[in-house]
Every structure is written in C-alpha cells, then in structure tokens.
C-alpha cells in the first residue's frame, strides 16, 4: 500500500519504472519506463536481439530484472524475483502467447484449455469444459477440441494457445511474435483472432514484425533498440514520420519489401 491514489479507469494496468535487466555482462534492458492504460494495444517493434521478448517477459515474471520496479494491476514485482506471491497473482491475470505456441502435446486440445482453470482456480470440470468450448468456438476451432494439438496446423495451434490464455480471463495479454513461426498462409487467421480481441477491449502488449497489422490495430507503437525505448507514439506518427534516425533506418529496412 505505497500508493495513496484511488484507482480509476485511468490507473495504468502496467507500470514499469527504471527497469534494468542484465544477462551476465549483457545489459539487456536499460531504464525502461512504460505505462499501459486499460484497453490499450501496444505494439513493440525493433531488431532481433534488441530486448523485445525480455521486456514483455519481465511483465509476467518469466524473466527477473535487477533494478527498478514493475506494477501489474496493482501487484508489485520487485527486482531479483523477490515477489513470489505477487508473481502468482500476476500470472493468473496476465495471459501470454508464445512464438512456438507451447501447447502441451500430451493433452488434448480441450485439456490444454481446461488445465489452468481446473488446477489454479479450482473451477469444476464441467464448467471449465463449457467455457473452453465457447472459447475454442470463438477462435474458430470448436471442431478440433478432442484432437491432439500435434494434429493441428500451426495457425490452429496458435489459436488454441490464444484460447488457452483467454480461459483465465486475463486483464492483459502478452504476445511474443505470435505469427513468426507460421507459414505465410496461416498468419492471417491468427491476426484476425487478435484483431477481434483488440476490438473487444483487451489490453495487449504485442511484439511483432507484422507492420501492417501494427498500423491497423495499435494505439501506440514502441520502437526499442539496444534495450532502450528510442521512440513511441501513435502508429501514424512512428511509421510515417519517425523522429529518430535509428527508427527511420529500422523502418526503411523492414518496410522496404
């Protein structure tokens, strides 16, 4: 209870203060200050190795940081992983979709989606199943519920992963290059599902190289380079009128083709 502010709808869901992260000698995140408002869709862009994954993985504690402070929906994450209790709370409120899907291959599609509600929330199986079927329907794969995830296409797997994350009714969704491992013809179906989620008002932090999607869906685009936020703003500004030379050269490289 360090803050005396009364929470309003404008209280940010994520607040990062001077977050610094090292991997050994490598200073991966440098003084990251970032606030994300409820319902905001933030797209993070930058070259490979610039720290995009590390940044969003700090938000749900998959990476520890060494200095600074992160608050997620009022739960405080401290440096060096000294916040085990808040961590569990945060993770049930923050969903994540990975580049490699990370579905559980030993469980059916349905059991992938019901595992967390049943084990973490203690939701009765019947209710968890009904909820899972509804979510699978929503991402367009209701008919695959009883299959093994290994029988699905990449695009279908990623939509299952999305349904699995949504089943915990997260307040915030993290996406780490959700379409980078997909064949080109399957990218659209995953982006469509994400677009719909954004339309429904989900708060989202998305790392992606899909610039067209970013321009269309993002409220804010953040360009990160060498572990620092170099530039941020509405997509129209960052894409069409970037202020920093580094952003310009990055965009000219990725938008060329």
């Amino acid at each position, binding site marked *: 209870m360090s803050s005396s502010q009364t929470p309003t709808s404008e209280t940010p869901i994520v607040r990062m203060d001077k977050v610094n992260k090292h991997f050994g000698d490598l200073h991966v995140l440098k003084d990251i200050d970032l606030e994300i408002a409820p319902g905001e869709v933030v797209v993070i862009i930058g070259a490979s190795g610039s720290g995009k994954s590390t940044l969003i993985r700090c938000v*749900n*504690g*998959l990476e520890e940081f060494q200095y600074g402070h992160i608050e997620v929906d009022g739960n405080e994450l401290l440096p060096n992983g000294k916040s085990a209790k808040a961590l*569990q709370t945060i*993770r*049930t409120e*923050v*969903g*994540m979709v*990975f580049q*490699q899907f*990370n*579905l*559980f*291959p*030993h469980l059916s599609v349905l059991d992938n989606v019901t*595992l*967390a509600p049943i*084990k*973490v929330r203690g939701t009765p199986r019947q209710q968890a199943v009904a909820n899972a079927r509804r979510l699978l329907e929503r991402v367009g794969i209701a008919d695959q519920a009883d299959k093994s995830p290994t029988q699905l296409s990449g695009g279908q797997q990623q939509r299952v*992963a999305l349904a*699995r*994350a949504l089943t*915990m009714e997260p307040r915030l969704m*993290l996406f780490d290059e959700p379409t980078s491992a997909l064949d080109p013809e399957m990218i659209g179906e995953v982006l469509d599902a994400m677009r719909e989620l954004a339309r429904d008002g989900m708060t989202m932090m998305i790392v992606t190289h899909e610039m067209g999607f970013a321009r269309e869906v993002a409220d804010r685009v953040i360009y990160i380079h060498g572990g620092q936020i170099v530039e941020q703003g509405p997509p129209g500004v960052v894409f069409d009128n970037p202020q920093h030379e580094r952003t310009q050269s990055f965009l000219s490289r990725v938008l060329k083709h």
Partner: protein
Amino acid sequence: MDVTFDFNWAAALASLPHLLPGIPYTLLISFGGLAIGFLIGILFGLMRISPLAWLRIPAIAYIEIFRGTPVLVQVLFIFYGLPQLLGSPINALVAGIAAIAVNSGAYISEIVRGGVQSIERGQREAGLSLGLSRTQAFRYIIWPQALRRMIPPLGNQAIISIKDTSLFSVIGVGELVRQGQVYIATTFTALEVYLMVALLYLAITWSLSLILRLLERKGLVGQ
C-alpha cells in the same frame, strides 16, 4: 581332428524342473530392486538438476559412486561387508534386491535427469504463464511428458538389471544361475544346463522387450 558334439536334449529338458524355481527369485530381485531403484532414481535425478548445491552435490556423488563400481562388488559389500558394520547378518535376497536398487537407482537418476531436461523450456513457461505453481507445472506438464520419453531407456535398464542378478549366485541366493550350479554339481551336464539357463534369461528379457514394443506402437511411450 574328430570333434564329437554330444548334446543331450533329454538332460537339458530334465534340468528344467530344477531351474524353474530360480525364476521367481530372479524376477523378485530384478523387479523388486528396480521398483526401489525407480524411486531412488526419481529422487536423485531431481536432486541432480536442482539449482541448490546441497541437493545437487550428494546426488552427483551417489550417481558417480554407484555407476563407477561393479554391481558384483556392490552386492559383496552389502552381503559380507555391511553385516560387519551392523553386527547382524543380512538376508541374501534382501542384499540382492538392495544391490539392484542402488545400482539401477544411479542409472535411473540419469534417465530421469535426461527425461526432464529434454522437455522444452517453453512447456514450463507456458504453464507458469497460466498461473500454475512450479510444482503444478512439473506435475501436470513436465513429468508426464518426461515419463513417456523415459520408458525406452528404463526398459533398457530393466534388461541390464535382470542380467546383473545372475552375478548374485555368489551370495547364495537361489536365482536362476544358482539353481543351475547346484544341479550341475550332481549331474555334470554343464553344457545342457547353462544353455537352458541362457534360454530362460532370453525368455524373460524378450517378454519385456515385447511389452515395451507394444507400448511404443500404441503411442503410449516415446515422443
């Protein structure tokens, strides 16, 4: 040179009733030892991958010691050596089971370690990101997948341990080889009897292989 190959089938068959009583001992020592070895293997295999040195180091020591010494020496140590320390004799059957347990336990620790470490990091991260605790992520996500991958090497270890029990005739436990030796002492039909003993081992190990292959074909084990 005139070699007469004089194999006496009647003698071979006649030995069977004297050898069969060894099978329950062989199976009891093997599978009793392996069952305990599996528990030891889970415990020490997980200690072996712990980030905590005080768990990891004893596990490494145990694994190195019992993989680096012969099972025959281990069983002699347990049967003849330990009673000196304890001041009371140890039953030969118990000594045999204990030897297989500690010996297979060392190998199974490495199988457990390999199985758990073979599961991609993303599996655990996906579990944690859903709010599962580390224990839950292990129990519901990592362990079931690791176990499937462990079954083929575990089957392999079982076959090795079954064969290792043949050495335990030296402590007088009435397993297959021991029964054969006792019978040969009165009949002098070593050729026939040891062939039968070998065939009985084959019958046991082949049955086990067959079961494992069936499991694999049904997709219950492996990847």
